[in-house]
């Protein structure tokens, strides 16, 4: 067991953990943030995606020790008021059905939207192919990313 400090959503969390514990379980069980989900444990489904220094990573296969000294952002910290362009677009198009995978979907989409102001279909395929949705909301995810890109441009203009 090692004592470490994680910076999650802007706050410091000091915890004692097995350095090999995946970041996913540290976030869920030790820090108590439950929005990041366990889906497969082998980086196949994307339910556990969080941002590590701005990159979309699979927290189920990322050792907690790798996150030390870096900025971790989870779905809870993506925006203050559930109003990141991706969150707004997801709400406007009623994307989720049972909703379990969408923390990961939105976190993957958020990185895509930061990197591409106008994501093409191919960009969306590349960024989102790692996220499984068993409800099959894929058509809406694609639409929501396009809508989020529009919302994002408006925000930038206004800002």
């Amino acid at each position, binding site marked *: 067991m090692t004592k470490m400090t994680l910076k999650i959503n802007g706050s410091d969390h000091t915890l004692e953990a097995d350095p090999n514990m995946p970041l996913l379980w540290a976030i869920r*069980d030790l820090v108590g943030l439950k929005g990041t989900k366990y*889906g497969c444990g082998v980086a196949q489904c994307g339910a556990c995606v969080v941002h590590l220094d701005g990159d979309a990573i699979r927290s189920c296969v990322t050792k907690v020790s790798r996150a030390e000294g870096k900025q971790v952002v989870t779905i809870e910290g993506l925006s203050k008021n559930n109003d990141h362009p991706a969150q707004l677009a*997801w*709400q406007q198009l009623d994307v989720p059905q*049972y*909703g379990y995978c969408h923390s990961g979907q939105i976190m993957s989409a958020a990185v895509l939207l930061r990197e591409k102001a106008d994501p093409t279909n191919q960009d969306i395929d590349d960024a*989102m192919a790692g996220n*499984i949705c*068993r409800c099959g909301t894929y058509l809406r995810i694609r639409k929501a990313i396009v809508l989020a890109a529009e919302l994002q441009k408006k925000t930038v203009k206004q800002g």
Partner: protein
Amino acid sequence: MNNKQVSRRDFLKASAVSGAVFSLGFYLPGSANNAEIISVAEAENYGIELNAWIHIETSGKVTIFSHRSEMGQGVYQAIPQIIAEELEVNLADIHVVFAKGNLKRYGSQNTGGSSTIREFYKILLNLGASAREMLLQAAAGSWGVSKSECYAQGGYVFHKPSGRIESPKRLHYGQLVEAASKLTPPKDYVLKKRSEYKLVGKPLLRLDTPFKTNGTAVFGMDKVLPGMLYAAVERNPRLRGKVKSFDDSQTWKIPGIKHVIKVKMVVFDTYREGIAVVADSTWAAMQGKKALKIEWDDSGFEHLNSEEIYKRQNLALQTQEGLSFKSQGEASEIISASANKIDVVYETPYQYHGCMEPMNCTAYYQEDKLEIWGPTQNPDMVQEYISKDMNIAKEKIIVNLTFLGGGFGRKSFMDYPHEAAVISRQIKAPVQVVWTREDDATQGPFRPGISYRCEGVIKDGKIDAFKYRMAGQNNMHWLTGKKDAVNGSTSEGFLKPYYETIKNLSIRDVPFATPIPTMWWRSVYASTNGFAFESFMDELAADAGRDPLDFRRAHLNDERLHLLIDKMENVSGWKDKKKGEGYGTAITECFSTTVGEVVKVSRQADGSIKIDQVWVVMDCGWYVNPDTIRAQIEGSIVMGLGAATMHEVRFIDGKAVDTNFSTYQMPRITDIPPIQIHIMENDEVAGGVGEPALPPFAPALTNAIFDLTGKRIRKLPFSLASV
């Protein structure tokens, strides 16, 4: 809008502090056809347990206790939408509380069979209307005017004649709570016509979506109790196996391990055994589980391979007549005598439900009292079963529903809550049992894989004789114990109007068993039967040399179905097929809803088949929210696509061998064809919407491939890359 779980008693207690409440609910003395609407106070007096109720406080806050669980199909929104329509309140002012599992109190809470809306919509409309009428009566009484001069809107009662038209005299519902609560529910009210609806039939946004975009929705695994431990269980990998012995010396070397115990969980008429590792984090429990060395006892049941299962099904279909579900005319005789009969076998695979949220359950047992928190479709059965098996009085078991991260039938089963309860009782602490994806993917229960033999004879361009036999695990044989009795599973998916026109018809069930536990899967038997029925209908049409849609029309004397087929033909451009395009169709019935689909395919330069377009026409009768329906249809097509072209559960030596999404390939965003959806508009009885779009997809696709290539696909799944 909130998402809470409290008991009715707590709720009444809390409300009593704040003043009077007006509450009205319904219960079902017999069937859903004779629901009684009464006040909650009256129900308390007579000891009647209500199924659902509306609760209005003096503040005007409206709460609906919903007795169904939410698993993504929109019940969370549909029930308030229906009640608010007649109650005349704004949807945003409604709070929803999930009721706790209790068979006696709520009647069956099993959320399955696309049943919530189709069974209860009329009762819910009446419940809303009764409450509205009582509020109108209360307002009329306080003003000393006739009720007929008053109307309700947006949570207020207005008296039109007494004020200016633009600002009539009004009272907020909260102000009427006390007076309304003293009235008797009326019988003489009129429900709105569909054309008058403001909420029902409109594509309103779902109320639960915001919780699902910021991580605040509480799914099973997100529940935390003070002092809660985490458990992972290494269960016998064979589906009915036991534990002979185990060595946990390596497990105990992992920090955080608290208990290692032998456990069992129910699997229909047997128990499966395993070793539970209980620790202070999910990760430690999973590591401890991996470190176990277990010797299994796999005696007493067969260790089957997939190949052997299908060989036996085929043999059964070639040698046994089985049980008759429906027999009319002389189907067998005509087929035996015919030199031109078609005689083919279709095979459909075992399927895994693959909920993104793996099975999990939280339980706390203390001194003869058990509380459970979990994602379950079937809280009352969980309560009933555990009460019997663990000898705990039913009223001492509370089942709390969380959001479900997918159900699809899997979460109607009681194995995982049972196991959590067993572990908590043994360790005397609250525990959350988390299944790994590997546990979830390999341990079942699964959708049964079924083979079908279809035989038919065409005469003068029409079906002269039709014979259909299924051989596969029939869940009703397990559940009812009646292994030699036919049941409705056999004909699920089939359009009943064919019974009138196909004079020589035989539908049969050849009983077939394996030790593999099987369970409902989205659209149940229609999901496999539909492939056989509608593939064969296409083969018969081809044999008759007729257009597949015309051929179906010619065998259906039913106006609704003709309208559906006309719509399919029009929207899909069926008659404008171009060179290099393949068109296929299928129509099935499921939970009182009929769905017709048309699929268009073409061949790519690399030889693979591309699905260019899917058209879906659904006739579900009266419906609530077209956007929810569209979402459910899109999801059904994607799930059907996976089951038809990507995944199956394969068994080797009695074990399911695909352990994770690396080999159990799921559809991804890159695989999804464009889907165009049309909902038929009529006022017919409401059918289900969550499942019925799945069954026609596979046969419409394979029929389209036949149209393009001349090749019949009779075994699922198949690969689009190598047709």
